[in-house]
């Protein structure tokens, strides 16, 4: 029985709209946006409407720079020791430092290692690169790492910087709008790219009757490992040797109630990451499923875990493309959520790809702490086929829980459920 619970104990951001969660929250609430027209951005030959960091005065990697800033802020907020072997790093990004392709090793693993070293972290970093849901997927992995007993804290950092590579790619897909994007709006015609870094610290609290869970223990090398290290050749697929040992055998001391949870510093609220899920449409490599299959299944997985009266809003993907927003409205409607307020934030800072799952979650948390649903900048008239309740302007929120929903290339869809005041 898993009685452990996972909480968000720290957060930090670095965005063109502000460098602290409160600052960005205030900007979004006041209807401000970092989206601008950038003539001939990255030498792409066309103007690009995007939310970008200024490039003047940047020496070295912008990606590393913003990751470090967001990460340090989150670590300070949580008040935990990054150097402990019981603290893990999960980095979430789609293209990482791709603009250096050709001049350096651009694997995200190298980026994660650099970041870990700069933060003084010692455990092997994990990189989640799952298209635009990476920030959510990273939190799902972080939660699992904590429930496994391997770590007490996980720092999850999501980041994306824009580049000629990404911009020309989206241009070739004709997915960009040359104006400020309009999520769910009848006049929407594409997305705006953005860049940002956002980080959360997740911490585990053993429940009062913490039992040995499946994963408790000390890892051992076993026959299973060797089957992974030496799979059989293509000519002969065969069953590997049977696992004869419990996978995670041994026991880690579990903190009963880490300091970071007992005394959260970032707000008056304690936020629980109740659960998270990823589901594939199994339909098309870049276009979303016309029936919103993956998003619907993700919502269906989480909804039994939340009291409908307590679900204040769903923070949607809302990229402002014709297909995505329509698909989301179908998924929401199928899941019975057409009466729940939905909020799309990309009209304030664009599509921040790897950072989106974390940045948009942090802003949603702050919104609920203020008791509101944030406005959806750019939305005026509903332009999807299902009657969903897009929050055109700020409104009071009813409930202590929200769902963050995202979709991405490769047919992926992700959702997490967060609840405020989760100690009881």
């Amino acid at each position: 029985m898993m009685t452990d619970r996972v909480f968000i104990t720290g957060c930090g951001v670095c965005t063109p709209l502000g460098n602290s969660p409160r600052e960005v929250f205030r900007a979004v609430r006041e209807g401000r946006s970092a989206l601008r027209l950038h003539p001939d951005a990255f030498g792409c030959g066309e103007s690009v409407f995007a939310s970008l960091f200024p490039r003047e005065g940047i020496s070295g990697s912008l990606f590393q720079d913003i990751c470090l800033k967001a990460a340090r802020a989150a670590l300070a907020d949580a008040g935990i020791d990054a150097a402990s072997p019981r603290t893990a790093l999960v980095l979430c990004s789609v293209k990482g430092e791709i603009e250096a392709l050709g001049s350096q090793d651009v694997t995200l693993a190298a980026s994660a290692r650099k970041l870990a070293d700069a933060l003084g972290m010692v455990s092997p970093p994990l990189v989640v690169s799952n298209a635009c849901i990476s920030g959510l997927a990273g939190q799902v992995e972080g939660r699992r790492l904590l429930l496994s007993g391997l770590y007490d804290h996980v720092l999850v950092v999501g980041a994306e910087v824009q580049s000629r590579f990404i911009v020309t790619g989206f241009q070739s897909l004709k997915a960009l709008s040359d104006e400020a994007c309009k999520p769910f709006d009848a006049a929407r015609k594409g997305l705006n790219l953005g860049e940002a870094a956002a980080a959360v610290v997740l911490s585990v609290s053993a429940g009062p009757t913490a039992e040995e869970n499946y994963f408790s223990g000390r890892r051992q090398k076993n026959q299973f490992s060797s089957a992974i290290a030496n799979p059989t050749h293509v000519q002969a697929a065969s069953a590997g040797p049977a696992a004869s040992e419990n996978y995670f055998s041994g026991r880690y001391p579990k903190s009963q109630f880490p300091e970071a949870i007992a005394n959260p510093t970032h707000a008056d609220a304690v936020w629980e990451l109740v659960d998270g899920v990823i589901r594939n449409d199994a339909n098309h490599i870049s276009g979303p499923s016309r029936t919103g299959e993956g998003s619907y299944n993700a919502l269906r997985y989480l909804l039994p875990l939340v009291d409908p009266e307590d679900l204040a809003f769903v923070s949607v993907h809302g990229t402002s493309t014709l297909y995505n927003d329509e698909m989301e409205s179908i998924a929401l409607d199928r899941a019975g959520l057409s009466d729940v307020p939905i909020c799309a934030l990309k009209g304030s800072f664009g599509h921040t790809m790897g950072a989106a799952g974390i940045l948009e979650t942090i802003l949603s948390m702050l919104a609920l702490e203020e008791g509101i649903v944030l406005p959806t900048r750019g939305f005026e008239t509903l332009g999807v086929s299902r009657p969903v309740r897009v929050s055109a302007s700020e409104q009071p929120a009813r409930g202590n829980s929200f769902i963050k929903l995202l979709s991405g290339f490769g047919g992926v869809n992700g959702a997490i459920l967060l609840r405020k005041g989760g100690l009881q």
Partner: protein
Amino acid sequence: MRTIEIPVGTDLAKLYREQVGDYPKFFKMDTACKLGFLVAELLVKEDPDRFVTREDRAVLVFSRSGSLADDKNYAESMKDFPSPALFVYTLPNTVTGEIAIRNKYAGETSAFVLESFDPEQILDQIVLAFQDRMTRSVLAAWIDCPSDEEWAARGWLIDWRDLLPPEEEHRCCHGGGHGGGCCHHHHHEESEEHHCCGGHHHEEGGEHCCCHGEDHGDSGEHHCHCKENK
């Protein structure tokens, strides 16, 4: 647990024609997706109800290079006419997408980038995937493709039963549990096998798990081919 490897240098088009042959979209994929697709095909070819949509199988892909081979190809196309067909593959998770589309896997799909091929870390992530309450099996692959000509491609299909700790199930009981009392939670020395008793010694009066409590005839042979008569 099933395992497979596609050695570098294998003619993928030929392998596709020999082992698959009915999925022309194969030729639109980048090399990494072709490898992932083929690894998956070889692992699940014989599955019953192969193309029925299911949500209980997670697909995880691991690499160091991510989509590097396709990144380079796309970057080349960027010089004059950026290619959308190349761009859509410049993500590591498209490998899982292609596997999901082909096999109608509507469950979890995830992609991770590791510093190197680390079986322990890979196994950790596979085990963690079972925390999704619907996931009962994991199709995992290491698809590391720094260029169209060099790669490492390995795959594993792991069922939840493969991971049960010994106290709960013995392989030889095939899920029959301890009702009949295979080993009654007793520890086993490293040298002792469970697999159908394998000729090893039993507790006094203990049943042979493989026999599921049935009596043995006078001929004495156990179905498990244990050498002791009972």
